């Protein structure tokens, strides 16, 4: 099963390497990972999407907690949470598909981040399913390139 893990870490160099090394060294997989500082600049938050059975997840949790630079770990999948991904997609613009493109963009509340000579770059956010849907609809219109962020997640209310 897939899990979204939120990790508070010391904002020091080498911490990302420690965490990545822990996952690779112990054979756990990382589907996506995002890191950025928090309100407290000495602390960063990592959101890691991983998968495994309960035992693997328990070990991931414990092994993360074992790292000195890890301050706190939550498996947000087990709580009420909101999660988002960001996608940037550059799509071909041709006369006949232009309207369709803008219809899709509107439906997904995608913004136009850049307009080029023969393409536009759309920017959209949403949970994973929504991003997948968007990509599915844009594909026939001619995706030149797309870049997806890792998932970020936040708990819906103050929870221990």
């Amino acid at each position, binding site marked *: 099963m897939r899990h979204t893990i939120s990790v508070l*870490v*010391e904002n020091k160099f*080498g911490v990302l*390497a*420690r965490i990545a*090394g822990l996952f690779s*060294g112990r054979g756990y997989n990382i589907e996506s990972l995002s890191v950025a500082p928090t309100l407290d600049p000495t602390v960063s938050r990592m959101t890691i999407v991983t998968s495994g059975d309960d*035992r693997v997840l*328990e*070990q991931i949790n*414990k*092994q993360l*907690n*074992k*790292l*000195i*630079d*890890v*301050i*706190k770990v939550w498996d947000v999948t087990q709580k009420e949470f909101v999660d988002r991904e960001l996608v940037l997609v550059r799509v071909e613009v041709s006369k006949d598909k232009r309207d369709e493109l803008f219809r899709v963009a509107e439906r997904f509340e995608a913004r136009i981040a850049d307009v080029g000579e023969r393409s536009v770059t759309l920017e959209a956010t949403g949970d994973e399913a929504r991003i997948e849907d968007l990509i599915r609809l844009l594909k026939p219109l001619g995706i030149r390139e797309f870049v997806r962020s890792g998932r970020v997640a936040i708990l819906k209310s103050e929870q221990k």
Partner: protein
Amino acid sequence: MEKTGAEILVQSLQEEGVEVLFGFPGGVVLNIYDVLFDSEIRHVLTRHEQGAAHAADGYARATGRVGVCMSTSGPGATNLVTGIATAYMDSIPIVALTGQVTTALIGGDAFQEADIVGITRPITKHSYLVKDVADLDRIVHEAFHIARTGRPGPVLVDLPKDVTSARTVHHKPQPVELRGYRPNLKGNPKQVKLAAEAIRKATRPVIYAGGGVILSGASEELIRLAELIQIPVTLTLLGLGGFPGTHELFLGMLGMHGTYAANLAVSDSDLILAIGARFDDRVTGKIEEFASNATVVHIDIDPSAISKNVQVDIPIVGDVKLVLKELLKELSGGSGQWVKVRERWLKQVRAWAEEHPLSYTPSKKKIKPQFVVEKVFELTKGEAIITTEVGQNQMWAAHYYKFNRPRSFLSSGGLGTMGYGLPAAIGAQMGCPDRRVIDIAGDGSIQMNIQELCTAVQYRLPVKVVILNNQFLGMVRQWQEIFYHQRYSQSCLATAPNFQKVAEAFGAKGYTLTHPDQVEPALKEALASDETCVLDFHVDREENVYPMVPPGHSIRDMLLGRGKKEVEKKVSIADRDKITG
């Protein structure tokens, strides 16, 4: 007053109570060596950095204090790696100080640059690259704190040369405060109650204790618990000495080379009380069949050790000593009845022990390796510190030396590092000058760090090296005999140095012994001597270590000797692929 980084480092080490440092100099650590020149800290110059790391480890295991080793950058630092990994696998507190190229050069493939922090990340508990001299004293204190607390382990501090020459003010050590690191010491009282209840109810309980008992100094509590409830005790390799080897409740070691009684008792038990042990595959054998009918109580300071390999029913996370104290409180009162309650189980266990005790066929013509270890035990009355190399020598030392005190058996269990024993003995002897320290070695392993004889001689350390010379990589040969149709591929060491002469060349005393009658007199003489001694015992070449559980089998299935096959099933090819060692 401002001081240089090197001065601050050495002063911080002294504030941590460091008395001895094992190391080897080089370009980027010269600032530090210059300060050490006038320091009260004793520096032991090993002849290889691996030796320095193992010596720091041996010092830590023997004394319970943090061991410290130091090297230069690049090759010096990479030479420490095996020693750091050895300490990591066995949870031994050491601090490794490595020199690094100046900060401006880092990342540019400078001369003798190696990313040692990166290389050692998976084999250290934590590591630091000091970039600013202002952080140095704090980092040193954090390093010692992390190494010695919680589940201990190695910590590496990488020191760029310019940091050791930069100046700043040295601050008095502050209490270490790390928000991401607060080991849980006290066990949850509810869990302790549950454990006590399970223990009271059990009819066939066994204590399975490991290195955690020694690391937390809990031997006394372990003895009291075992005696109070009359539970037989088995120990892992690293646990040896944590419970007296001559105690009537002691079953011997368990696992791949465990005793018949220990392996059967664990397999038949209805309650396993695992204390400071981690259900390593060398202990459990086929994991699905390990104590499959038992309720498992597990006491360990490391939450990640719990239910990692075996599903635990009653976990207690905490310091073994503190938890055992609580458990004793919970169980005390109404004593006396346990002797009666336990009568049947203990009778059964003892019957197993009598049925197949550890044994070998004595000989009047050939020196049996087991006989040598027995003699070492007799002559030192179980009071020596024994280090080992890896292989058959290690297992015979574990079987035939009865350890009555903790911190007396120093052996690389988790990593199984050949070449560990001699440098570890040097470290142990530095830490315990009043005890006899003996390295029980194989002729293969001893050649891996034999240069450290020079170190022992230089510091006049009366370390004794007992080589059980079978002219084979014995344990490899044993596996090839049993699982590979006696095809002794690359395990024959017929070409070997004359160890007596090697010893003499280093300035140590050397002996060559070929007849059983020579064993006792030679050992007596060497043990009475204050010199570094190497005793080369030419032993029966094809002696095997028994019992042996073939890999992939339940620990119930033991080979008890040549031709005495307890395991009827032939070891299949599939099992062969599971073989690691």
